[in-house]
């Protein structure tokens, strides 16, 4: 089947969906259900699982039709579900029936998903995690603590990585599960952060039971499954290009415009430098997108984005605080909100400034990212590893 035929088919199906199910009138969940049934949630998935079995590149065509008719960006409504859970489920679920029973409510956003990977003792060294899953007949009994889980308090399902064999080296003893967040023994607690808000949660697992049917991939193969999850993550690379001056730097520019009496030549030079770096990164992202389009894979410029934007965010908000001067020492409120609007980057500048400290930690610390750039892009040798080849239980932790 030629890709041109597929492209025409995707556009035709999308056109029919918006004609029969006007996204501007229907409830979001109903519209997204129609998209799933038509195979437009993930066009590269098989028929019946929210896909049409066509090339993944055609998703953009479908999204363009659906979103220009007023449809939502589903990724924003169920980010872990759409970005990470769905590809992993479609690839590793034990049966199509089971996959479908997860995927449809995921697609409609009736059931939100979260991810239980990081632990208090396993951050950068994720493969060293300690949460255990012990087999008991047809079920697994899970004990441990997870942390930095966004949406855990609203999610119905979780992607869970747990240790099933402590006698193996760390990467080999892991198994991947889907955990019912409503199961007994699952307790979620808000994790308050330095901004005063609680965007994330801690999740405590005490004898929580998972049916073996909800295991994804083979026992001991959890690391490989987790990697396919991360590789499949819907990345920003497919998205359209940002405008010059948009993003975080827009905050600094708007404040600069709004507070002429606070301007100094030194601040002016700092802002010009920040603006230039933002622009260089914007152009680098645009170049990365063209590289993917023409070469089929991202070049080094793709790996640079996270590192730069995290440090740039911090520098931009440091600038904003310096521009504000005495005002920077005031704050809105340290009262915890859990109303869905707790995302701190939409709060006051002072709160955005505090929130930006996490940017160089979350989703890969800048130290780890520099290792990745050094080792995977530049091909430098890895550091000495004290845990290489050792059984996980022999490795000192703390």
């Amino acid at each position, binding site marked *: 089947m030629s*890709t*041109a035929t*597929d*492209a025409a088919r995707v556009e035709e199906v999308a056109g029919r969906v918006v004609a029969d199910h006007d996204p501007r009138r229907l409830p979001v969940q109903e519209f997204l259900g129609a998209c799933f049934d038509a195979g437009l949630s993930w066009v590269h998935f098989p028929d019946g699982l929210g896909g049409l079995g066509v*090339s*993944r*590149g*055609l998703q*953009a065509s479908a999204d363009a039709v659906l979103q220009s008719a007023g449809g939502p960006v589903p990724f924003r409504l169920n980010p872990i579900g759409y970005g990470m859970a769905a590809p992993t489920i479609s690839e590793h679920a034990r049966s199509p029936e089971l996959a479908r029973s997860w995927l449809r409510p995921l697609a409609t956003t009736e059931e939100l998903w979260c991810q239980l990977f990081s632990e208090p003792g396993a951050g950068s060294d994720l493969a060293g995690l300690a949460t255990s899953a012990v087999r008991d007949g047809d079920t697994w009994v899970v004990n441990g603590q997870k942390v930095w889980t966004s949406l855990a308090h609203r999610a119905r399902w979780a992607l869970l990585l747990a240790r099933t064999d402590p006698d193996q080296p760390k990467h080999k003893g892991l198994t991947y599960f889907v955990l019912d967040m409503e199961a007994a023994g699952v307790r979620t607690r808000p994790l308050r952060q330095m901004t005063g808000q609680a965007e994330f949660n801690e999740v405590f697992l005490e004898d929580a039971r998972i049916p073996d049917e909800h295991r994804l991939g083979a026992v001991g193969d959890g690391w490989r499954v987790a990697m396919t999850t991360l590789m499949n993550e819907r990345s920003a690379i497919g998205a359209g290009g940002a405008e010059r001056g948009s993003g975080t730097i827009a905050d600094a*520019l*708007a*404040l*600069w*415009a*709004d507070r002429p009496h606070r301007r100094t030549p030194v601040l*002016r*030079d700092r*802002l*010009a*430098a920040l*603006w*230039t*770096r933002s*622009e*260089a990164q914007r*152009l*680098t992202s*645009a*170049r990365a997108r063209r*590289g993917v*389009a*023409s*070469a*089929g894979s991202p070049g080094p*410029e793709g790996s*640079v984005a996270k590192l*730069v934007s995290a440090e740039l965010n911090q520098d931009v908000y440091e600038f904003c605080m310096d521009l*504000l001067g005495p*005002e920077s020492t*005031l704050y809105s409120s340290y009262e915890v909100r859990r109303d869905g609007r707790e995302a701190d980057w939409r*709060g*006051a*500048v*002072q*709160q*955005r400034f505090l929130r930006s400290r996490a940017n160089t930690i979350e989703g890969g610390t800048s*130290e780890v*990212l*520099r*290792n990745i*750039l*050094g080792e995977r*892009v*530049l*091909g*430098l*040798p*890895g*550091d*000495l590893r004290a845990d290489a080849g050792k059984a996980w239980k022999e490795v000192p932790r703390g």
Partner: protein
Amino acid sequence: MADTATEVATEPHTGPVEFDVTEEQQELRAAVRRFCAEQSDGPAVRRHMESEHGHDPAVWARLGRELGVLGLAVPEELGGAGAGLVEQSIVVEELGAALLCGPVLGTIGLALPALVASSAGPLRDELVPSLVDGSRTAALAAPERAGLFDPHAITVGAVHAGDGWELTGVVPQVVDAAGADLLLVAASGPEGIALFAVPGAAEQVQTEPLTTLDLTRRQATVRMREAPARLLAGADEIDAVLGHAFYTASALLAAEQVGGAQHMLDVTVAYAKERLQFGRPIGSFQAVKHRLADMLVLVEHARSTAQHAAWALQTGSDDPFLATSIAQATCSEAYYRVAADAVQLHGGIGFTWEHEAHLYFKRAVTDAALLGGAEIHRDRIAAAVLDHVRATPGVPPVADGRA
């Protein structure tokens, strides 16, 4: 691979898109790189930089005649290849990576663009072909401030003399002037400031070579005393002509900075993999690895802004003032820092005369100063983006301490 085919199938294709790399461009890059490896390797660079005029005219002529890469942005009707500035910047990037000695900035960067932007005429038709084929070289003697023509700093006067003109005055620090066959000189005459063509070999012209920090890029003081001159661009067009020349030179200089920085990154990465201390390659230490990662980020940013500047000038897709300043602010800083870090990460050997790092470091210093340094270009950016910005509705909320 299926995804790639899909992209092509679904995207309405109306010519190349910014940041596309064509097969022809890859071949061009490979050809210049091959040429440099043969004609301008480390020992050759040292030989050329220590020679009288700082380069080998035979090598330059082969670049023009055999490779045909000196006039890629020159229209075909003038004897150029008519390819574009994007292609020319690929060549300059590779010449910068090899530190090839020759009048890259004077001839490709400044003189040819000034000639191309001048109005058509027999003088232009006469001068361009020999610069494109590399048999002659040229330099531009026009005052510049922060990469923009500065008419207030003119130090040369022009008077009518028979059918032509005579120029008198001194121009300090003219890049690539020593040994240049042709000097394009901005001078103040009875009808205003104009651009003139002066034969470099005229006996009324003295080019006094200066000892430069970067021996691979020479400068000279040009002294003219009633030097014979022909009018190339009059007072009504000199701003446009020199504007085009300085914008083009800024974009090409940025490409050269990318080439040099990439080379310094490459050799330093290679060294970090083979140099052993404490029983390990030094590149396995995070202090070294992370510095190299930062160098990579600088090079990638530099490359994006340099390519954007060339594309913007070639297609008119962006304000040339802003596009060249973004490139110069980014690339000047990137090349300098990458070259400085390359010296550092090489340790003692990086400080020796024998190692190539100091040659690139000196080029980085020089390139950063030429056509305006990073601070000056940030100042230009600030003037364009910050100074007249008005308060807009998009101001983020600022906490006032009252919940």
